[in-house]
């Protein structure tokens, strides 16, 4: 399952980032890594996604979001 498939409000966990290595490193440095738990807060135009991670909001374009694999997380499991 990829990030764009997740509905607004869903809680998810990043399982894999399939971006080129240098771009994936930057995504990691910015706070989105395998195991990161996030919420989808907004579906934007042209397939863009906004996610919430530990108090921050990240905007990702459709291409980038499509290369992030996720799994649903049960809130406060």
């Amino acid at each position, binding site marked *: 399952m990829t990030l764009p498939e997740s509905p607004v409000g869903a809680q998810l966990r990043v399982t894999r980032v399939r971006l080129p290595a240098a771009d994936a490193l930057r995504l990691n440095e910015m706070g989105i890594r395998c195991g990161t738990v996030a919420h989808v*807060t907004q579906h934007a135009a042209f397939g863009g996604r906004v996610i919430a991670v*530990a*108090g921050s909001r990240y905007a990702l374009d459709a291409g980038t979001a499509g290369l992030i694999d996720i799994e649903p997380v049960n809130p406060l499991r």
Partner: protein
Amino acid sequence: MSCHGSDCAPAPGRGATTTMPATLRVLLVGGPNVGKSTLFNALTGARQHTTNAPGTTVELATGTWRTVGPGSHGSAEGPATERVIVDLPGSYSLLARSSDEQVTADAVRELALSCAGPAGQPGVVVVVLDATTLARSLYLLAQVAQTGVPLVVALTMLDLAESASDSPTAGMDPDTLATALSVSLGVPVVPVDARNRTHAGRRGLARAVDDVAVRPRRVTGVGVPTRSCWARTSAAVPDRAAGDLALEYAHAEILFAWVEQVVEEVTRRAPDPTVQDPATWQRPPHRRTFSDRIDTVLLNPWAGIPAFLAVVWLLFELTTRFAAPLQSFIGHLVNGPVAFAVTWLLGLVGLGDSWVQGLLVDGLLVGVGTVLTFLPVMAVMFAALGVLEDSGYLGRAAFVADRAMRSLGLDGRALLPLIVGFGCNLPALAATRTLPRARQRLLTGLLIPLTSCSARLTVYVLLAGAFFPHDAGTVIFMMYLVSVLLVLGGGLVLRRTAFRDVRSEPLILVLPPYQRPHLRTLAMSVRMRVGAFVIGAGKFIVGTMLVVWVLMALPVTGQHPVGHVPVADSLYGRAASGIAPVLAPAGFGNDHAAAALITGFVAKEVVVGSFAQSYAVAKPGDAALPGSLGEQLRASFDQSSGGHGGAAALAFMVFVLAYTPCVAALAEQRRLFGWRPTVSALGVQLAGAWLLAVMVFQVGSRL
């Protein structure tokens, strides 16, 4: 850890130093939107200036941070301490991915090496930590700490962190958070509220910086890199070899683990039980914040784009309609009462009606007046951009417009200056500063002159009215269409030639929470940027105006005194005659058109006036009327084009669209990007304009 070592460790005995260095160098380091520049403005006030980092077009703000210590024997004020403080470009990591980030990484590296050397210049790095995004800020802090530089932490965004419902530090009061961080890190952590007028945080920061300068502290638990580690960080990430990248990955993983450990330690001290469980800070119950609610509208797939266009339209209106009366007022003031007063004073000292009066009034004063007339539009643009930036909308604008600019390899934010360029190129160039990467700023800055500013409209109206009275509107519309095509075509050509390094990168933006812009900080920023424009671009504008006056004042034929020369007999007129044959293939190889184009280099608004002056007629109310300027234009364009005046007029309009917009825009380009790109762009613009005009005429005259 592979980068552990002791090469960058303090020199022996340094920790025992007890005297304050004469002039302490302080570097402000932090991620984008963490309040770094706001803090810089609060610390330096008006004692600051901007320059480009050596060999780059990356803007650096440097200032003097002055504090007055408590006096001895109970007096209120003691001796003043001054430090040189540099506001480095915002960066998420010292593994640079752009020239801006490279400047930050290099500055930290140089300071670290300087600190480690026996005779180096001492300095301190202030790492600005955003309390709302602790983990991300701590990663950068860890990298800086590993260089071995003495450092202090300035904790910002505390008001937002305290109230943020889904932040790991939610509910922690600023002092508790700062103390917890200081204990975990082993370096001073000072809570600062740069937006507040109170000086408590800033005084605390000054004390901590001075203290660390004489008694360096190191962040505990992150280690110090060897020099070989520095060699790896000197190349930008996209250019790294795969092996180096894998090593950096492994190194980053270690830092991520350290960051998680620090966050866990800090959040354990939180009074709110919901954030005491280390697992919980990663998975807080999600609550929609105030910013989330605004984003449901401003980032909505249907409402987001109209909202963005409305913001751009507002900017457009502000820099044209709102600023125009102020520009007009200043223009009338300088050319009227001020010019009259200077003339009167020169008359009193016996220099009335002399070349000195011409030089001062028609050269120098006109130049100064030109600079002053641009002040309102620049101030309005800087203020509007400041509001957009401080409020948090600018990042959203980049996100909304990303798709439109992606084909040009540009950030979505580039759309904003490009649209503003259709009002006036000068504030549009200034707006390129909102782009996060230097190469993108340069690429956008080279495309902006191709946007058809409102000053060019006066030329279109004159020529379209004179040559195509029944289709003037369509012709003018076509000119705007050509302008859009030139921007797109120019962008694609540049990306495949000089800007092959500008890649379409994944868009990963951190959206800051919406905030109310702080007026005092905004006013300070506008004052600084307008000042930089006046000093940087003003000299060039005034200098060019003086050169134009000299060209017009020097006679080459006839018996005319200097400063009282008809245009045709001046050096300027001779230059126009010399240029005219070059323009012949485009159908407008006549002295009138050539002179108008030379004048248009100074400002497009004066092209119509130049035509009127060279044909010795008044400015026309309607160019289509017989006996008017329009008739004279038709006659001379018909003559120079062999009876294809319409095609020649179209070619002239295309030339006006494509060549240098004005001397002020040129000066701003030079200030922002340096001489080399500006002169190259000037050459390309002139050659491109000539080629396009020739194509239009050659095709048009055969239809």
